[in-house]
């Protein structure tokens, strides 16, 4: 009886997801330290903060084992309203850094509501789509879905936080795809997307730095000393890593500060430089494992809501990994999208752990 209970309990836990996540954050914390120890002042300052958020994240994920995720489905409206209110709050009491207003100070740390918005959107959109029985067949339903996503998305776009807005789009498309998106509608979305991009250029809606980043993506040699500098330095860092890298803590591009924001947006470049193709392969392997587990969990979920939530989380991570690492290698435009579990940043770490917690929850409740 006791033994059977233990096995029952063991069957509820996705160990590969837990181990994968653990390896990722351990790897990530190590790289945050490697990317920041040479900075002025306390060499451990960033690592300490990151470790604290890692622990907080673990606690949050563990806390999520105490309830069934399906319960969240009933709170779609309050969650949605809470999301919008938080995003609105940013405009009134937000902190402005480098021209963007993204953070709300809550005592010991700055909360980034746009990060939280990703996970809340997964939950509310999941509930919304699950109510439709996973079928978005008509055009009007599609419009309602985009209205659902549109409000938080616009609030994030105007902060401005183009990167997170794009993540929301990726989540939406991923979940829509699972909800039986028709190919005609997919084409329609594609068409609207193209028109939107044309309009953005027509009316010069991009900020100057965004325009610069795009131009650099198209032609990296435009301005090697100015805006193209970051991309160039990142490519040099990764490329010069060769197969086995220069060794942990031995990156010259990162240690001598040629790499910009190396502890956050460009942390993948540090991996590439110090641990080479080998280290980057392991990292990408861990992500592949993590995201594939997400899809497997989506497949095994006990209900449609679980499938949608697991898909949303997987889509979020896939998109972030693609855009972030792609950016550091020059195959994606530069946007401030963090690498999940890896880039330095509290809000991002918490949100990813919530995502992992949700996946574990969906997995644990797959038989109900």
């Amino acid at each position: 009886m006791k033994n059977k209970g233990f096995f029952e309990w063991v069957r509820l836990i996705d160990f590969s997801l837990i181990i994968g996540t653990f390896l990722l954050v351990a790897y990530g914390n190590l790289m945050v330290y490697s990317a920041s120890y040479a900075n002025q002042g306390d060499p451990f300052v960033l690592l300490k903060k990151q470790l604290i958020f890692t622990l907080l994240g673990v606690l949050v994920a563990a806390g999520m084992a105490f309830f069934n995720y399906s319960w969240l489905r009933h709170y779609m409206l309050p969650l949605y309203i809470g999301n919008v209110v938080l995003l609105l709050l940013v405009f009134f009491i937000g902190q402005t850094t480098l021209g963007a207003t993204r953070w709300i100070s809550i005592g010991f740390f700055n909360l980034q509501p746009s990060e939280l918005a990703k996970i809340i959107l997964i939950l509310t959109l999941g509930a919304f789509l699950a109510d439709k029985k996973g079928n978005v067949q008509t055009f009007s339903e599609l419009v309602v879905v985009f209205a659902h996503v549109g409000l938080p998305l616009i609030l994030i776009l105007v902060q401005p936080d183009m990167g997170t807005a794009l993540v929301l789009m990726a989540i939406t498309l991923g979940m829509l795809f699972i909800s039986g998106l028709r190919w005609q509608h997919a084409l329609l979305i594609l068409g609207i997307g193209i028109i939107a991009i044309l309009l953005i250029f027509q009316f010069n809606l991009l900020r100057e730095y965004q325009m610069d980043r795009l131009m650099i993506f198209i032609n990296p040699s435009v301005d090697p000393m100015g805006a193209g500098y970051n991309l160039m330095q990142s490519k040099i860092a990764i490329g010069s890593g060769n197969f086995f890298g220069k060794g942990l803590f031995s990156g010259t591009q990162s240690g001598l500060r040629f790499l910009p924001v190396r502890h956050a947006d460009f942390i993948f470049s540090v991996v590439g430089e110090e641990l080479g193709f080998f280290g980057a392969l392991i990292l990408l392997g861990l992500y592949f494992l993590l995201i594939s587990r997400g899809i497997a969990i989506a497949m095994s979920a006990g209900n449609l809501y679980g499938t949608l939530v697991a898909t949303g989380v997987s889509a979020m991570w896939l998109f972030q990994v693609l855009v972030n690492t792609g950016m550091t290698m020059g195959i994606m435009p530069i946007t401030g999208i963090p690498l999940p579990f890896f880039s330095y940043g509290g809000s991002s770490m918490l949100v990813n752990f919530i995502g992992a917690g949700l996946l574990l929850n969906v997995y644990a409740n797959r038989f109900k």
Partner: protein
Amino acid sequence: MVKLDDSIQKRLVVLEAIITVVFSILLGRLWSLQVLAGEKYVEMAESNRIRTITTSAPRGVIYDKNGEILVNNRPSLAATIAPSKLKNKDLMLKLGEILNMAPDEIKEKLKEKTADPLKPRVIKYDIEEDVAVYIKEHSFDLPGVEVKLEYVRNYPTSTIAAHALGYLGEISEEELDKKDEAEYEPGDLVGKSGIEKQYEGILRGGKGSQEVEVDASGKIIRVLDDKEAIAGNNLELTIDANLQVATEKSLVDAIKAAQRDGYPEAQAGAAVVVDPNTGEVLAMASYPAYDASKFIGGISSKEWVRLNDKSSNFPLINRTMMCSYAPASVFKPVTYLAGLMEGVVSYNSTFNCEGKWTGMGEDWPKHCWNRAGHGLVDLSLGMSESCDVVFYEIGYMLYKKGGELLQKWSREFNFGRQTGIDLPSETKGRVPDIAWKKRFNEKYPEYQKWVPGDTVNLAIGQGDLLTSPLQIVNLYGTIANGGTLWKPHLVKRVLTAEGEQIHLFKKEKIRDVAISKNTIKRLQKELRRVVTDGTAERAFSGFPIDVAGKTGTAEVKGKDDFAWFACYAPANNPRYVIVVMVEQGGHGGSIAAPAARRILAAAFGFPQTGPMSVVDNSR
């Protein structure tokens, strides 16, 4: 377990396929960056972090012939900036305030294009100690700005021999293109004139290089490799500093005396002292002079304009060898020798000077400087009294003989050619001849024909003849030593930084002139007579050493007369040959000869200096 809809299952499989594709793309890109193109990026990363700093070698010291230091080096605190920071307007403003310079001025300093935008370049030398400390303490606010200890030129003897020594300046773009790129970089100091330019390769030494690791802001983290600079070699000149001082002073005094004596336009001049037995230049003075120390750290554009303006009489020009003038009567020895060598006159020839000469016909009269006439004169008196009629006659006879004989003998003494002195930008002067006149008047056919008067003018050192004072020194040196034309030179020895001799410059013969010893001896006598009984008698009355020489007073259209005196002493065993020339200074005998006397007094160590000027109306 609730079975999911088949279609959802299928779509999740598609999603997993998409994931696989995404990761394959990322891995492919990684492979191409790290493994395929890895070496290229390794190189780029290395050039990011490794910087080669070249350290300039201490430039060679320049000594006079007695070992007195004329030019050496002194340490100077210099503010430098990485050229890439020039675009930072805030930084420029801040730095301008600290260094007391306009931001434009800073940019002006770095106008030469640079190979490396991160390599620091000097924007100001000789900054104050407290400014240097301030910059170091505020290095965080002043990215790319550094203080370096540099060595700059130092002139212990002040401005003496400025023209011979020359000055340094930042290498120009044209010079960079010409010189070996590996050795020279923008911002390098190179000799721009004088010895500094001529012996650049010897003085300069070899740069040192330091390989350092820098961070993104250009801050040096550690030194990887250090190769010390090799000091430049030292030069020992033939110049005698004491005689140089006396020569410069005598020249200035002569110019002042000329101004006092009614020649207010006398503003410039030249004086040279050479050893007639070797060609060694013992003193070389050009007035106005300049202060080479003003060029340290780059001369201000205002000062540069002043130095190159007509109103300041172009002080950068070395008038002893970069300029050529009508030599007038100091040229007469050439005519004398030509006449004798060609046999158109003999020692016994006599001439009748009535003050006016109509040898070329009544329509073409020429005058002797002495309008009253010298009466019956022989060749010797013609020289000592500088009688123009005698030389008109000789010139005309040479013309009639044909074959441009006077020009031929002029060239025998290297007129119309560079003396070959070891200084840059030497003038060739000009010996006018038929071919030259035709070329020169290309656009004026009526003036192309060589006429008898041209040769007659040449015979008295006027007309289109142009010579540098140094060429005249060469003429008198050759007469003094009995017929050998030595190449004048300024550098005696090349020494290592430790003082060991590497090279000795021996005297270099241009040629033994094709004139018989007796003829030269005769000329020597005539020149001695100029000083004892002739036009230079008053200037040298009571001088204890026997001097031989010749006065000259050149007519220049639209200007006052140019005063010349050329001499050597002691007359029977010459050690010094001297030429003094004062632009618009009046008569050679009254202004230039006394100056030469004072120089000789200094050379022989006499306390007395002689008169500043005497009365002489000859030409």
